[in-house]
């Protein structure tokens, strides 16, 4: 499949995911224990995508999170970009096709990004964001449970398109 078409397809998926995350799966509408599709997508890009632009997509996805959640620019962009880079590097060393390993990678990516964000908030702000480490663990578990089957389905679709 043409690399440009793959990139545009992933870009559209990215916009679709952020739309779902800001409407149907918004923490405002549906509570806290929801999958972070945006993060799962970034891990997917890091593990599967051979497209060079996937780095830009990961950054763009984080930026859209920044804008739509009214955050300062950079919080999500940088944390998600960092997660992308770490998963990308580790994917050279770990066999990421196994469900259990994938679940663990998604879980650890969640812990990493939220710890990254929480650390910045704690260092630089006393704005009273109510979010604990327990919430992060729960979010990580939810992401893993939802992410593994999503990866399986998305991996098959992606492989078909890559042919």
């Amino acid at each position, binding site marked *: 499949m043409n690399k440009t078409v793959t990139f545009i397809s992933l870009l559209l998926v990215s*916009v*679709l995911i*952020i*739309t*779902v*995350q*800001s*409407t*149907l*799966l*918004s*923490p*405002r*509408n549906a509570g*806290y224990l929801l999958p972070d599709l*945006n993060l799962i997508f970034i891990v997917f890009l890091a593990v599967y995508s051979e497209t060079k632009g996937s780095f830009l997509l990961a950054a763009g996805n984080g*930026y*859209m*999170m920044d*804008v*739509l*959640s*009214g*955050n*300062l*620019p*950079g*919080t*999500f962009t*940088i*944390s998600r*970009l*960092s997660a992308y*880079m*770490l998963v*990308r*590097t*580790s994917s050279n*060393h770990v066999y990421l096709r196994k469900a259990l390993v994938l679940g663990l990678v998604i879980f650890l990516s969640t812990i990493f990004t939220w710890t*990254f*964000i929480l*650390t*910045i*908030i704690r*260092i*630089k*702000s006393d*704005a*009273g*964001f*109510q*979010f604990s480490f327990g*919430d992060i663990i729960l*979010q990580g578990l939810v992401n893993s449970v939802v992410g593994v089957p999503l990866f399986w389905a998305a991996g098959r679709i992606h492989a078909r398109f890559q042919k």
Partner: protein
Amino acid sequence: MGFFKRRTILIVLVLFFIAIQLFSLDLRERNSQNPLSKFVLDITYYPQMAVSAVTDGVIGTWRDYIHLVNVNEENKRLREELNALRKEKFESAEIKAQNARLKKLLDFKDVSLYPVVSANVIGASPSIIRSQVVIVDKGSADGVTEGMPVASYDGIVGRILLAGDKSSEVLLITDPVSAVDAYIHRTRARGIVKGVGSGCVMEYIENKSDVSVGDKVISSGKDGFFPKGVIIGTVIDISPDGSFISAGVSPHVDLNSLEEVVIIQKSVNNVVLNE
């Protein structure tokens, strides 16, 4: 440390320090004039509108039909009749409720000193750390600009954080960075209403002030954002806070089920977003 490349670790560390610096920027320097941020709002406007319309349609269909699918044949005709009646009743109740809301909004328009724009909530924050942000379907094309106050017929909702061409972000009064200069309606005791996520708290009320549970809290108009005298909420508890009094405030508007709001087109000359 062979698991991750040393270069990757280094880049992540550099990114971390860049993130800290970016987070230090005051909200005043936020991306309000950043065309890229407005572009993100614009490209997500149509998908959000579509999801919003589909969701409304699906919920309507679910309510009207799906729970009546498993009916037995014996009562089919009666159930169809009942279904039609329920649908009609539901629709009329919805229309009635919507009429009442819109009428109140129109009344609000009539009494407001400033021109207002009605808007529908089409989305909300995708993030857990700042969930007190909603997205409405009016933007700069409708005369909306950053800092404009947002209300409903029940009282203050928040203010415009970022205005795209067709949609805008509204920072709700329950957000931890929101602050409204306010009075206790009964005694005119002054304080600052801040968001705490699940509700609000009125801080910096002088110790000698007369404040009681049940008192109404209204905007003072002195913060340059909100018009004077709009209701914010009701005092639900009071506690001493050093040399001041702190009062828990339950917002008058049910912010969890916001559907329609009005954006008050009050020019904000002195935009100071509190952090």
